[in-house]
């Protein structure tokens, strides 16, 4: 006979203001099997939990129903409390009468009625709950960091520092990411390369860190503590172990007209290339789209000049498979494509550039050696217009609904640097709002305005028109002065919105993590678990989770590392016991369940059955590996005989819930 205890939480007034908690406790007390039904101010408080624990002991409860907030909040709290009182934690059910009742309804009578039904439903389910015991699963003491930008590097360094092996997978030939392309950083105006490259070197020299550059994640299997990841090492046609990075091949390569992606295509590189001087690993890579040898079989200059014999035109993509206990995603961001922004003439006029292009134009290692010249005629620009929020805070389909967060500050930085270096240049910044919430940020912006006399104009640029004389007509409105402006500019710089890297979406699918509609990874909790994904063992680092500047990225990278270290420190983790299981007596061995299992958790065995007539029969039956099963339940519906069921969410439990709601 069941002895169920019901505990109704007031949650202060969060529940009690709209739900008559006393009436709920009273009504549920009449449900079959319920031996005690109480209400209390804060069930999740120490004394609230004590109430539950005492009831379990005194009333010898076989099941507990807590009518409170969402199980996503406190299910674990109450399960732990039950366990400490000697009741199996899976004999606890939560009726969500806060998020799904009191907070959404206003009328006390109907909200109370609904709360009673929700409570009754939980009671009906708990009648059928069975004690479940968690299995232990070992943790592989190695982490994978996907992405080798500042976020990935920082995370890897921190994990390695803690004594764990860590691999970085970077799709580019070098680590460094976006930060390597940036000239100066705000609000300190120190050189990005100067602070980044030592970290890159540190990563490459740390014996616990393995860098897989020019590599991609091809497949992810497994689960927290035990992921199996297939890494594709793309053919770079250069033997990494032999190449010394001397750069002779890049000098001698006859194919020199390859757009240099590191400089945003503003200059050219050779077909065999090292992205930049401080690249890590400093190893050449052949671009098969341009290499004459690979395309036509004629050339071979690089091979001839390479004294190390590192060139290998026959190199193929290779795959390595590695076990990891934790995975950190640090796939970063890109500026959005501005093809659709005809009004800014980005595609028509070479002197309309993005902010990242401007970074390269101003960088000493950039196309102009650090002198700011117009891309079109290499002349010094005298009037520069900055356009903010290009594609950010947009309602239309071209842009992004969110604020890209970093643009206001880097534009202030650009404006200031230009005014500092070229005082004869007039700088206009068109903005919707200037957002500077950060340490020393507003001071920085005010310096741009007050000290450097940058013209900040609140208003949006309507149209950018290249003129025949090489000038650019910028038509804009000044919202404060309420007038239309025409500025005769030499250059226009667009603060393009940033978006997650395109590789993030397929990666999220492989990792079974969630993304929001903008393809940013979703954190497990927006406030309390900002660096974990909802999928156990997958952590988030940097701008893949949302727009961030460098200090924020580094902070989050270290936080993600701390979370990963916390996991790697454990020898084993407790598995979710709510997994599928097959009733062998009913299983037909038809393989339907196996086909829908995303984890390959189901295998088949030939099992000998003793028949009632004392004969034996060998049948093929499904067998679930509870350590691999994640409990989605796809198999339970694929199974026609109902042999497959899911602990914690069994057919009978769900039907009991349906019955309780409908009665």
């Amino acid at each position: 006979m069941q002895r169920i205890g019901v505990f109704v939480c007031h949650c202060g007034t969060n529940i009690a203001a709209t739900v008559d908690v006393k009436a709920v406790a009273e009504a549920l007390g009449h449900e079959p099997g319920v031996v005690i039904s109480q209400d209390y101010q804060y069930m999740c408080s120490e004394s609230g939990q004590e109430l539950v624990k005492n009831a379990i002991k005194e009333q010898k409860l076989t099941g507990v129903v807590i009518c409170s907030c969402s199980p996503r909040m406190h299910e674990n709290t109450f399960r732990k409390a039950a366990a400490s009182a000697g009741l199996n934690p899976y004999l606890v059910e939560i009726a969500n009468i806060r998020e799904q009742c009191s907070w959404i309804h206003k009328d006390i009578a109907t909200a109370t009625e609904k709360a009673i039904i929700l409570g009754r439903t939980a009671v009906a389910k708990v009648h059928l709950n069975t004690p479940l015991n968690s299995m232990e699963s070992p943790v592989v003491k190695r982490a994978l960091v996907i992405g080798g930008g500042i976020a990935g590097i920082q995370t890897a360094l921190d994990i390695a520092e803690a004594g764990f092996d860590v691999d970085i997978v970077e799709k580019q030939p070098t680590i460094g990411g976006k930060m390597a392309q940036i000239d100066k950083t705000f609000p300190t105006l120190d050189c990005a390369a100067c602070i980044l490259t030592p970290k890159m070197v540190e990563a490459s020299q740390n014996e616990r860190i393995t860098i897989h550059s020019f590599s991609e994640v091809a497949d992810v299997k497994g689960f927290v503590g035990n992921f199996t990841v297939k890494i594709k090492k793309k053919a770079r046609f250069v033997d990494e172990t032999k190449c010394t990075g001397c750069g002779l091949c890049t000098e001698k390569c006859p194919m020199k007209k390859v757009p240099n992606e590191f400089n945003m295509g503003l200059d050219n590189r050779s077909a065999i290339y090292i992205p930049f001087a401080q690249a890590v690993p400093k190893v050449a890579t052949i671009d098969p789209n341009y290499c004459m040898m690979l395309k036509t079989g004629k050339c071979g200059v690089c091979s001839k000049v390479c004294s190390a014999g590192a060139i290998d035109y026959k190199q193929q993509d290779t795959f390595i498979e590695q076990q990891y206990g934790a995975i950190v995603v640090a796939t970063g961001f890109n500026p959005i494509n501005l093809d659709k922004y005809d009004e800014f003439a980005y595609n028509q006029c070479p002197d309309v550039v993005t902010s990242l292009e401007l970074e390269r134009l101003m960088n000493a290692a950039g196309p102009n050696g650090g002198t700011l010249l117009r891309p079109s005629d290499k002349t010094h620009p005298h009037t520069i217009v900055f356009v903010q929020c290009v594609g950010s805070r947009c309602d239309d389909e071209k842009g992004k609904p969110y604020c890209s967060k970093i643009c206001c500050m880097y534009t202030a930085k650009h404006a200031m640097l230009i005014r500092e270096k070229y005082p004869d240049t007039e700088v206009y910044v068109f903005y919707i709002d200037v957002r500077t919430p950060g340490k020393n940020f507003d001071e920085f912006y005010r310096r741009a305005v007050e000290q450097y006399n940058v013209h900040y104009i609140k208003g949006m640029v309507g149209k950018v028109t290249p003129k025949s004389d090489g000038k650019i007509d910028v038509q804009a409105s000044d919202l404060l002065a309420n007038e239309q402006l025409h500025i005769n500019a030499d250059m226009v710089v667009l603060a393009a919105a940033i978006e997650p890297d395109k590789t993030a979406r397929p990666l999220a699918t492989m990792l079974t993590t969630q993304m929001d509609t903008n393809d940013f990874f979703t954190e497990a909790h927006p406030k309390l678990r900002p660096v974990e994904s909802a999928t156990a063992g997958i952590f988030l680092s940097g701008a893949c989770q949302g727009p961030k500047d460098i200090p924020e990225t580094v902070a989050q990278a270290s936080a993600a590392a701390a979370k990963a270290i916390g996991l790697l420190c454990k020898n084993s983790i407790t598995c979710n016991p709510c997994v599928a299981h097959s009733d062998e007596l009913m299983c037909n061995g038809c393989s339907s369940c196996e086909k829908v299992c995303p984890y390959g958790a189901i295998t088949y065995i030939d099992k000998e059955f003793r028949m009632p007539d004392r004969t034996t029969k060998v049948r093929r039956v499904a067998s679930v590996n509870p350590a691999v099963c994640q409990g989605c339940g796809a198999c339970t519906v694929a199974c026609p005989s109902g042999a497959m069921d899911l602990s914690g969410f069994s057919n009978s439990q769900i039907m009991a819930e349906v019955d309780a709601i409908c009665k």
Partner: protein
Amino acid sequence: MQVKENFEPVIVAFCCNWCSYAGADLSGTNRLNYPTNVKIIRVPCSCRVNPMFILRAFQKGADGVIICGCHPGDCHYTSGNYFTRRRITLLYSMLDFLGIERNRTRLEWVSAAEGAKFAATMQQFTEDVKALGPNRRLEDLRCRKQ
């Protein structure tokens, strides 16, 4: 069909734990109202919803059944909602083939971030079911409330 005065439909919503249930919680957190008619059953994934459960709900007195899951591609279990989509499409098509009103069943993708969508969906679905009136074509007379 004639709409009964003050007809309050019973609506069962199956919500996946990772997206839609969280979406429902979010609509609560944001105090976004939707009708009390909707009662949510938490399932790990929308692919856990067996057609049996849907029929059972109609048998026991539900007037509408809605299944909510993660957006395609966002499934916590990678592929669960893709299977859901096929199964439920076929099931709903079959119910339609048997002459059961189309608006009694629905499948919606609601992410953990879409509290407003959850509330709006439930509001709309409740209205649609109200317009249909009580479930008569797929009810079990024995379960009809006296």
